[in-house]
């Protein structure tokens, strides 16, 4: 694992290396495993009905202050620097949330500077920030660029006002496209739009318009997720009370097929089940997750993974910050992955990627997994040949394929 192979060379913009040379993560050979930093900003101005992330709106219990978040994030970077070997460089940083752009950009910059000073950012590091369209302005974009951010992931969800209403999104359909265009014009070369399909009430016509609108924005990366109604969310309660119909899996399947068809035609090819991009626009930070790389999660509830060891922080921002302030570990739990678990994760994650699952990585399980793969090929879920890659039908049933492949493992 930790191999970094790819389908296409990836031009990287943003922080140009000292030598000024463009370098591709997918062709580069590294002496050590790649390392990503995830920074969780747990704040939102309001909570969306479908969202089960670890986020807090003002006034909510456990919210804590933004000042304490900034200091604690900086403290956790120091903690990471103490634990990680000094020769490691950070290849990617991802500010996720929540809504990171709700914070003053100087807070994000301060954390990023700390990462660079304590750990060292690779010269070609990919630095992403997630944003809701309504938080983006020309001024904000300039601040983000100035502090080193080179990738923007915008939550667009849909171009259909009714869908946005049902999802409790506060922006109007045109805002996300406009924000993406503004970002591209301002010089953020990597812009991604997040979309959600399968919302009750949506039909294929509505979804095709959403895809067209996203492509019109001119972005090189689109993530499209099937809506999942998570227990504990307001939407789940509404579905349970019968106010909102359940997500129709057959419709979602049709929407997925439409997504692949429309995005491929526009040159954005799938590289992971829910992600499509122009060649070279793949999200390196996320690829690192799927390839079993190392990453450190800064922030409340953030998960980390270092060479088969995984841990996660306290979910409450207050508790997380308090632990760091007292010089204690912010960890709430950890697990050391067993051989079986490592195999499950390898199959589960690699099969999601366009490069697929290489039988050479399977060790002693190679034979029975390839035998199971033969059955799945007959059902039309895997393509012919190796590595094992999902067909379109297989992508829709990826969980099933994973379980089948692992059946006797």
């Amino acid at each position, binding site marked *: 694992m930790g191999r970094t192979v790819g389908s296409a060379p990836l031009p990287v913009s943003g922080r140009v290396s000292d030598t000024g040379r463009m370098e591709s993560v997918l062709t580069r050979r590294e002496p050590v495993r790649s390392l*990503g930093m*995830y920074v969780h900003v747990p704040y939102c101005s309001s909570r969306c009905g479908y969202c089960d992330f670890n986020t807090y709106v003002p006034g909510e219990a456990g919210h804590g202050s933004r000042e304490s978040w900034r200091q604690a994030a900086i403290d956790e970077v120091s903690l990471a620097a103490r634990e990680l070997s000094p020769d490691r460089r950070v290849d990617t940083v991802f500010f996720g949330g929540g809504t990171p752009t709700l914070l003053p950009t100087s807070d994000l910059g301060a954390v990023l500077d700390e990462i660079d000073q304590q750990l060292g950012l690779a010269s070609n590091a990919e630095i992403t920030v997630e944003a809701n369209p309504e938080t983006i302005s020309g001024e904000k974009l300039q601040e983000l660029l100035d502090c080193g951010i080179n990738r923007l992931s915008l939550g667009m969800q849909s171009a259909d006002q009714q869908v946005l209403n049902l999802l409790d999104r506060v922006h109007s359909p045109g805002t996300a496209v406009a924000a993406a265009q503004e970002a591209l014009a301002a010089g953020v070369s990597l812009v991604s739009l997040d979309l959600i399909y399968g919302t009750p009430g949506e039909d294929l016509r509505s979804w095709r318009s959403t895809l067209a609108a996203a492509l019109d924005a001119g972005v090189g990366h689109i993530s499209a*997720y*099937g809506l*999942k109604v998570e227990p504990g969310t307001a939407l789940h309660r509404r579905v349970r009370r019968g106010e909102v119909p359940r997500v129709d*899996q*057959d419709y*979602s*399947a049709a929407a*997925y097929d439409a997504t692949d068809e429309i995005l491929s035609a526009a040159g954005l090819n799938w590289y992971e*089940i*829910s992600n499509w991009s122009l060649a070279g626009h793949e999200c390196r930070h*996320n690829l690192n*997750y*799927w390839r079993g790389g190392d*990453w450190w*999660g800064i922030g409340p*509830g*953030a*998960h*980390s*993974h270092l060479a088969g060891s*995984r841990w*996660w922080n306290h979910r409450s921002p207050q508790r997380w910050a308090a632990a760091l302030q007292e010089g204690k570990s912010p960890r709430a739990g950890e*697990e050391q992955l067993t051989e079986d*678990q490592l195999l*499950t*994760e390898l199959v*589960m*994650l690699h099969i*999601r990627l366009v490069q697929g699952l290489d039988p050479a990585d399977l060790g002693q399980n190679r034979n029975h997994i390839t035998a199971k793969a033969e059955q799945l090929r007959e*059902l039309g*879920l895997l393509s012919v040949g190796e590595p094992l890659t999902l067909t379109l*039908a297989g*992508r*829709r*049933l*990826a*969980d*099933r394929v*994973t*379980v089948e492949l*692992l*059946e006797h493992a």
Partner: protein
Amino acid sequence: MTEPLPGATPSGVIRNFCIIAHIDHGKSTLADRMLQATDLVADRDMRSQYLDRMDIERERGITIKSQAVRLPYQAEDGVRYVLNLIDTPGHVDFSYEVSRSLAACEGAVLLVDAAQGIEAQTLANLYMALENDLQVIPVLNKIDLPAAQPDKYAAEIAHIIGCDIDDVLRVSAKTGEGVAELLETIVRDVPAPLGDSEAPARALIFDSVYDTYRGVVTYVRMVDGALSHRDKILMMSTETTHELLEVGVISPEPTAAPGLGAGEVGYLITGVKDVRQSRVGDTVTTSSAGAVESLSGYRDPRPMVYSGLFPIDGSEYPGLRDALDKLKLNDAALIYEPETSVALGFGFRCGFLGLLHLEIVRERLEREFGLDLISTAPSVVYSVLMDDGSDLVVTNPSEFPSGKVAEVTEPIVKATVIAPADYVGTIMELCQARRGSLLGMDYLSTDRVELRYTLPLAEIVYDFFDALKSRTKGYASLDYEPDGEQASDLVKVDILLHGEPVDAFSAILHRDSAYAYGVAMASRLRELIPRQQYEVPIQAAIGSRIIARETIRAMRKDVLAKCYGGDISRKRKLLEKQKEGKKRMKMVGRVEVPQEAFIAALSTDQDRK
């Protein structure tokens, strides 16, 4: 006067009686009160419902196994009597055991709740007592209840047994009011036993209980002669001989005695380990110079209802076998043999006396042996005559022959329903719908009616009792007894999954009900069986004719949620769970079905009951 001792009690001072009562009408409480009134149980040892030994009995408030207690009683006439209270099981499934308990008595206390009136089962047992020429003492209980209507129900009872209203005693077992008078009435009205103390020994077995420490404890009523400690005895139906290791009476704890004389009631211990060797209804005599003729009325226990019992966790199969082997020691009516089901794995086909017997066995298996079980829909015993003249007995729908069937006969019962008169119409409708034919109808009082029907046992076993209860707001009571067989237009309905029959769901039904069953079962399974990667038809069929069809559409998509850093552990655990779940999948042809789906389909069926 001195206390009459076991083995040396003149039959003139003995009174053998039982209490006939409906569940909850206060039989156990009355028995408790009698124990106290005769000073047999010190107040501090008194626990509620003293004579109900098993936990299940105490919790369900019913008596499954009868026992007999010897009550020394100083009557007002100055004589010291011996009252033997023989407890009777209170449910229709155990009517044979009831009949043997009644045969051991000369008198019966008819105990009726003064707020509810007589119920169908009580009535059936009362008729049985009257047929056995028992002296019936009518008693209204719970007269302390605000809702009691003693005058009304006294009139009802007087009408049924043909006595005077004033002959109906009024008692509160709870407060003790009237219990003293009842005891005096028993002494006065119940005849002393008539037996020949000089004749060869003959004892009627009316109950047989397995005890972990003592082996089988056999409860007997000495009819003629005597039995003594160390006698060699002969069980006349099974023709086995044993040595009497212990003879005794329950008073109220087991107390060894030198012997039992004519008219007395007590217990025998021989060291046998299986109640099948000491059967209810059998006659015990001495192995040398014993009786030639056994007492009348013995019959082998005959299962009326069959059901498959399967452990939900397949690895518990050996545990289930051991548990059944143990239960069998204490339950002469329970029979079983191994059965394999595609849907449910390895289990046992079990025969029961009836539905309650099934429920009790299942509950004991789950409670006392910690097993988690699923049972298939109960089936009655069918006789199938083929065109070629051969015939066979079918207790499991999956054994129903596929060839040319000339005739199928099914057991029928004579059923008695007692309900408020307002419900006569709805009850008649129900019985009509369940293929019943009316035998007669009587008003017990101005507003309570007794209806008599013949009904197929299969309809009763299916859901008749529940339907009756729900249509009469719980006011109707039901009793039934076997009444032979009848030929009916019966067919076997198979449920097919992708063309493969699912054995656990085959059913033998009247042709008129087949379609409804097929539609209901197919649609239930469609709800419960997860979508596969291809379309799966579910069909209901009679032979090769399809009568209903549903389709499970192909699954096109599973969850395509995000899978980023923080999602990986959760996602992995989910897949590990699915992988574990896959191991428990049952294959029906190519179709993968979680056992839970089969269990749920069967449970929904059982929940209705």
